[in-house]
């Protein structure tokens, strides 16, 4: 965190209201996002309790597992949720543009969950479903493994910086607003909303107190509050079990209705709050470069869609050494690009980088616009130099490649020297690109004395790193014993037994 962002949090705490951290929303927000609020049973591994799902505030569907420990009910739930999600995903697999290999879907799905815990719950659900067999013992409906694979794809994609296909709403909000509370408390959607948009008539203080009171604001999941579990849920599930055992249809439907009502009471406040958060986020203008990143999402969506259409295998349980290295390199690259994109688009983010000394801006005090050098190929090219006086605490070293949001597109430069000058610094940069092809730079491509310019490091192009083929991992990276690892579809996939009570 930079001094500037830290200061924003202090300001928020002092003024008791959220402070904007960015000018733009850097995530694409779909016109028709699908909200999923998963609830899980405490203490149980991946035992879904309920979910509310839908692509508009008015038509949320509530799915409830009456006895989460029962395997059949779990998978009936997974199939129910799976159908809704797959219908939603399939609705984006209609409109395709372009020919042959470059053909793409023009839109991509976007699933929103309330918080990082919700994302984890979907990851668990994906893992639970994707290896299920649709025939033989423990068979599940066709949609279950398909849903599992798609969920896993979306969860994997969510780790990539700048993507928008699966996001926690708390994350989107904290990217844009700083609150006067800790990161931990920011993960509570109600507490976060208390800072950004307290309910009318309430102060932030009161709204925060309400947000932590499970009777006023039930937790946004995936865990329900222990009081609710012990006071309401446990007796209701017991009633259901008894009715189930007795085979009494009236008692059973009464018990089911009671459970649904109880859970609806817990989940609906979060549902409303998520949609309120979405409309808040909609009011923030979208960053210019977000569209380019969204194209990346569409491409990834198309690729995975094609892979599924060709009957691809489910994602493996653990990455191989080479797969992991490739993925890590890709994620690092995506993060660097996302950070740079944000700073390029957004003066708030640029200021943040400046405060950390990772970017600078100031006024041109000296310029050698006519400077040229001779290249190895004996060509004379323009290499103008300018010196910028800045008050920023520049921490960039000589030879750092730069780009500039304040110059024309394609402008490139490199740092020659950074010299302290009293309370300021004089940074001399050499312009290396974006001046046209001629011997003389085009008009307006070289900053002039008195002009205000901003520079930040160029994440640059770098060649795709070469990795060995998957089956040629060096001995340092291959496991000596292959016990219990790594076939894409484990043999015992269908034989996993489940936490049935009886």
């Amino acid at each position, binding site marked *: 965190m*930079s001094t500037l962002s*830290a200061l*924003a949090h202090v300001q928020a705490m*002092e003024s008791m209201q959220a402070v904007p951290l960015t000018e733009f929303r850097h995530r694409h927000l779909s016109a028709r996002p699908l909200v999923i609020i998963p609830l899980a049973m*405490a203490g149980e591994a991946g035992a879904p309790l309920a979910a509310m799902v839908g692509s508009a505030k008015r038509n949320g569907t509530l799915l409830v597992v009456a006895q989460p420990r029962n395997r059949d009910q779990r998978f009936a739930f997974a199939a129910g949720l799976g159908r809704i999600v797959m219908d939603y995903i399939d609705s984006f697999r209609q409109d395709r543009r372009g020919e042959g290999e470059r053909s793409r879907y023009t839109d991509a799905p976007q699933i929103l969950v309330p918080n990082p815990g919700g994302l984890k719950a979907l990851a*668990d659900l994906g893992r639970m479903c994707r290896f299920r067999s649709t025939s033989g013992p423990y068979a599940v409906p066709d949609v279950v493994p398909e849903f599992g694979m798609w969920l896993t794809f979306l969860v994997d994609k969510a780790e990539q910086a700048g993507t928008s296909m699966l996001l926690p709403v708390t994350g989107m909000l904290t990217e844009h607003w700083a609150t006067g509370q800790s990161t*931990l408390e920011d993960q509570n959607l109600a507490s976060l909303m208390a800072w950004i948009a307290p309910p009318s008539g309430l102060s932030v203080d009161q709204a925060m107190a309400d947000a932590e009171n499970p009777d006023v604001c039930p937790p946004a999941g995936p865990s329900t509050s222990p009081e609710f*579990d012990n006071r309401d849920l446990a007796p209701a599930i017991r009633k259901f079990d008894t009715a189930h055992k007795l085979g009494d249809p009236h008692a059973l439907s009464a018990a089911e209705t009671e459970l649904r009502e109880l859970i609806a009471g817990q989940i609906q406040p979060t549902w409303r709050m998520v949609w309120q958060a979405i409309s808040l986020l909609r009011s923030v203008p979208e960053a210019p470069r977000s569209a380019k990143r969204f194209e990346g999402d569409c491409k990834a969506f198309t690729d995975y869609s094609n892979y599924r259409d060709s009957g691809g295998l489910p994602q493996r349980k653990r990455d191989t050494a080479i797969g992991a290295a490739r993925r890590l390199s890709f994620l690092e690259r995506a993060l660097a690009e996302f950070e740079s994109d944000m700073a390029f688009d957004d003066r708030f983010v640029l200021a943040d980088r400046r405060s950390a000394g990772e970017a600078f801006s100031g006024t041109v005090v000296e310029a050698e616009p006519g400077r040229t050098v001779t290249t190895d190929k004996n060509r004379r090219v323009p290499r103008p130099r300018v010196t910028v006086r800045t008050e920023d605490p520049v921490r960039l070293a000589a030879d750092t490649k730069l780009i500039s949001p304040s110059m024309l597109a394609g402008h490139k430069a490199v740092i020659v020297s950074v010299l302290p000058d009293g309370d300021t610094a004089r940074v001399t940069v050499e312009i290396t690109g974006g001046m046209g092809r001629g011997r003389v730079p085009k008009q307006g491509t070289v900053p002039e004395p008195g002009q205000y310019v901003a520079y930040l490091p160029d994440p640059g192009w770098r060649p795709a790193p070469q990795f060995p083929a998957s089956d040629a991992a060096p001995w340092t990276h291959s496991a000596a014993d292959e016990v219990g690892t790594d076939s894409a579809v484990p043999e015992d996939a269908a034989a996993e037994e489940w936490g049935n009570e009886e």
Partner: protein
Amino acid sequence: MREPVDDRLAALRGSAKRLDYNARSLAALENNPRCTLRALLDASGSDKAAIATHVGHPPAFGQSSFAITRGNAFEAMVKANGCAELLRVLRETLELTLPEVGYEDLNDVGGDGRSKERHERTEEVLLRAARGEGDGTLFDHPMLCLQIGGHKAYLEPDLVAFRIDGRFHVVEIKSFPIIDEQAAPAQVRAATTQASAYIIALRDLLGRAGIGEEAVSDTIVLVAPKDFTNRPTGAFVDARKQVAALTRQLSRIERVGDLVDLLPEDLTFDLARDSEDRPRRPAEELNEALDQVLVTYRPDCLNHCEMAFYCRSRARAEASLDVLGPVVRDQFGGIDTTTMVMGLARGELTPSEDQMEMAAALRHAARLRAELEDLGGAA
């Protein structure tokens, strides 16, 4: 003349019954060892939840009955039929050679479930095993005992296994899942710290009989459900670091006298309960008593300390940067309050010698912020 430390601690607790340390509260020591209030309340055996509730900041974490049921059911399943499932895990998953197996239940001694009797029985059985007599291999719920700050705390590990490479191993049975050979790091850490308390207590027990500490392994065996099933799987977890950390914390409890010496003579956290167990002490007065002790609040206290909401409200009232958590706080090394940060940022306060650099960075950041706000834009 100062009173002895124990009397002072008893006075802090007042009329309430003493709450002893257990493995859980010991493990919590590791989370925020520098907090004076916590150290005093724990060392004096005060009821933190009751105190926090009385001053209007009840703790928020209860435990769901589902989690408890699941935990118990899983443990029972692992131990059913003379630990059949556990042995399968030890032999198949962890590939241990356990030639013959004797199972000894130390849950109660001839129907006597009292801690002291159970502890004596445990001591006898484990010492016999350590000397190579007796045929026990698995000891179910032994009752261990640890002297903490001069007081006995009874601890009860799930299971202790012997003769894995000729050493005792603490077995922790937990119901959180190990999915694709990975478990949630926070939960593994909590389980390991808890097991570390058992390792220390077990070493203590053997040590008193002259048996060296190498007789107890500092690798624990974690047994937990595999993936989403009910079948257990196991893993070795290295607890060396946490055993060392906990040992260090325990030695600090011995020095709690130093902390007590800093307190006013008549300080007490007594709730003054009446005959019907209702606290009679005015909340105001208790609040004032608490306010006299230093606290080290961190947002993650909210996850494990009963006093956290009280400490947070205190930190908020003091405009302390602790409220924002270490990520923000660490940006302003040496500055404690928002008032100070804003004062330096606005140039209204004169920085001290060692605040010069921070003040310059703050003024720079404040200028940037002002520039952004002047230009309007985001609201």
